[in-house]
């Protein structure tokens, strides 16, 4: 049913060559299946649910499987749907079940206890258990790079961050971003605001409007659908004043499309989380009897678990890309320890 990712497909091709494996895969996959349960966002949330589903589809293609036979998803409409959906997957004999999003943490934890013979994985959270793999992303590292890009791009010396809810998870994005900006130039002001929800485009637009009004020219959002309002406002400003440099940095997946306005695009870059890669990878590990049960897999900048995209190469210039690459290397080398919380950020800023 799902048309699959458009832009994300292109980016995901590099690591896992789909063509090569598919031939050999046929035989061994016959009795292995992998499924995922979305959170309330659904498999088309243009965010990690979608990305995860794309990864699973990719995995299915790799092993010549059909949706419903070998891989599938269950969509949750409500917080109370997580457990039944996970259960359904298990009871339909899926060998590997992913829970997408930290909201499924409790559900995965419970169901994994109940079904020790099934492998589970949770994305964006940590759940203990021998049959659970925890897939996390170094959001702060990716956000740090977004900060670096913003700092290199800003003309006004003011950038903004809009978060969904003021929670540990989103604080990670904020801390990384602020650190990145300040590392490049500590004079740049960063305005941080939380909309209080991931589905409030009106508030997103209001906040963006006020930020852009105050001469902020780049906003990094980590706020789900609230970000739609941010894009709406940026595009609106761009429309009335095509010469004004105004940018949004997308999150989770490449939000280039969201930024398109006429023949211009306000998406500077996006901090993508390669949930697709992770899902594909872990599925394969499980299939090959190499399931990392009990492990916490952190996908960071190193293994391209998080990173920036250069789809908008006009705006995301080579210099910026180079700067980002430099800092990426420094993170990999351990030269910078990117802060993940407000406290760590304070310490980090003091140390600059």
């Amino acid at each position, binding site marked *: 049913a799902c048309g699959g990712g458009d832009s994300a497909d292109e980016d995901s091709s590099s690591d896992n060559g789909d063509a090569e494996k598919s031939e050999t895969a046929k035989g061994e996959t016959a009795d292995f299946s992998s499924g995922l349960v979305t959170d309330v966002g659904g498999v088309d*949330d243009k965010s990690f649910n979608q990305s995860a589903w794309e990864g699973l589809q990719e995995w299915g293609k790799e092993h010549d499987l059909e949706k419903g036979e070998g891989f599938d998803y269950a969509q949750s409409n409500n917080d109370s749907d997580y457990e039944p959906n996970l259960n359904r997957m298990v009871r339909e004999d899926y060998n590997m079940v992913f829970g997408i999003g930290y909201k499924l943490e409790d559900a995965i934890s419970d169901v994994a206890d109940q079904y020790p013979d099934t492998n589970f994985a949770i994305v964006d959270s940590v759940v203990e258990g021998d049959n659970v793999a925890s897939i996390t992303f170094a959001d702060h590292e990716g956000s740090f790079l977004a900060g670096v890009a913003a700092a290199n791009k800003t003309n006004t010396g003011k950038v903004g961050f809009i978060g969904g809810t003021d929670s540990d998870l989103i604080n990670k994005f904020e801390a990384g971003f602020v650190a990145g900006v300040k590392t490049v130039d500590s004079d740049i002001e960063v305005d941080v*605001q939380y909309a*209080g929800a991931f589905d409030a*485009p009106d*508030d997103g637009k*209001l906040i963006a409007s006020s930020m852009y009004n105050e001469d902020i020219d780049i906003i990094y959002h980590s706020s789900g659908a609230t970000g*739609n*309002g941010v*894009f*709406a406002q940026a595009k609106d400003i761009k429309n009335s004043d095509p010469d004004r440099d105004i940018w949004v940095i997308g999150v989770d997946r490449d939000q280039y499309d969201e930024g398109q306005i006429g023949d211009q695009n306000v998406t500077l870059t996006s901090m993508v989380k390669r949930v697709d890669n992770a899902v594909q990878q872990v599925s394969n590990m499980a299939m090959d009897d190499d399931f990392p049960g009990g492990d916490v897999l952190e996908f960071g900048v190193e293994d391209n678990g998080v990173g920036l995209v250069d789809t908008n190469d006009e705006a995301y210039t080579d210099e910026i890309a180079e700067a980002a690459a430099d800092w990426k290397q420094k993170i990999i080398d351990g030269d910078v320890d990117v802060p993940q919380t407000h406290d760590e950020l304070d310490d980090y800023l003091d140390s600059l």
Partner: protein
Amino acid sequence: MGFIDLLQSIIPPALFFSAPLIFTALGGVFSERSGVINIGLEGLMVMGAFVGVVFNLKFADMFGSWTPWISIIAAALIGGVFSLIHAVAAVSFRANQVVSGVAINFLALGLGVFLTKQWYGKGQTEMVSEQFFSRDIPVLADIPIIGKIFFQDIYLTSYLAIILAFIVWYILYKTSFGLRLRSVGEHPMAADTNGISVYKMRYTAVILSGVLGGLGGSVFALTIALNFSHATIVGQGFMSLAAVIFGKWHPLGAMGAALFFGFAQSLSVISGGIPVLEDIPQVFLLIAPYVLTILALAGFIGRAEAPKANGEPYIKGTR
């Protein structure tokens, strides 16, 4: 931040935030003035947002920059048709109007998402390519101070909403249609004996609420959300209902209330820079519209009195 600066940063956003509420609230005024309670405004907005976005996506190539305008007209029309369900229930089937309104809300969301999944294979649509854009109003924008507050970077839809409020006021209070409509909401049997068709008036009013709710929802979608999903309209319809009541069932009052809500919302976002407001937890500003409406109804902020026959099905020939 200076006071003028403050206004300049609060008012334009307040205006775009309020516009969908104004449209929808005006619809609510029509419906409730005719004696039909409309809890279904939320659902009507959902329908409007859905149609507006789908139409926009489908016909953007054909209509170019006119697309958003044509889309909201389409949304208004479909909204009107959709509201017929409420009209049939409330007027002809003598349903409990609150219950029927609740059904409308469920139905709109269910249908909207169902059809989205059918047509797009997923729970939310793409972003539209032809959204509404703000603009400066020629000449007026150049007026010092005021120009920047009211006429720069303004959505025409915001002005349309405000002008419409005055038009609705004129219709309700100056034309014979308005007199009849209000009489039907106050004392339907009196209207009936005067040869006014209560059913026709109420159908018209409810359909108008659908048209305006459709407008409100589509304007919201095409200025703010830019796509449609189950989470596009979350409470704006109920906030419009609050505006109807807070505005005492008067079109200008409803407009004022909607503007006030927009202002409060805008302020809550910008409050970071304002000394007094900075310390108020955001939640208070979030719940302000609802709490204020309660206070208004309780008579602590002027008494709000509903049209007398509001909520009562008219049964011809009862004694």
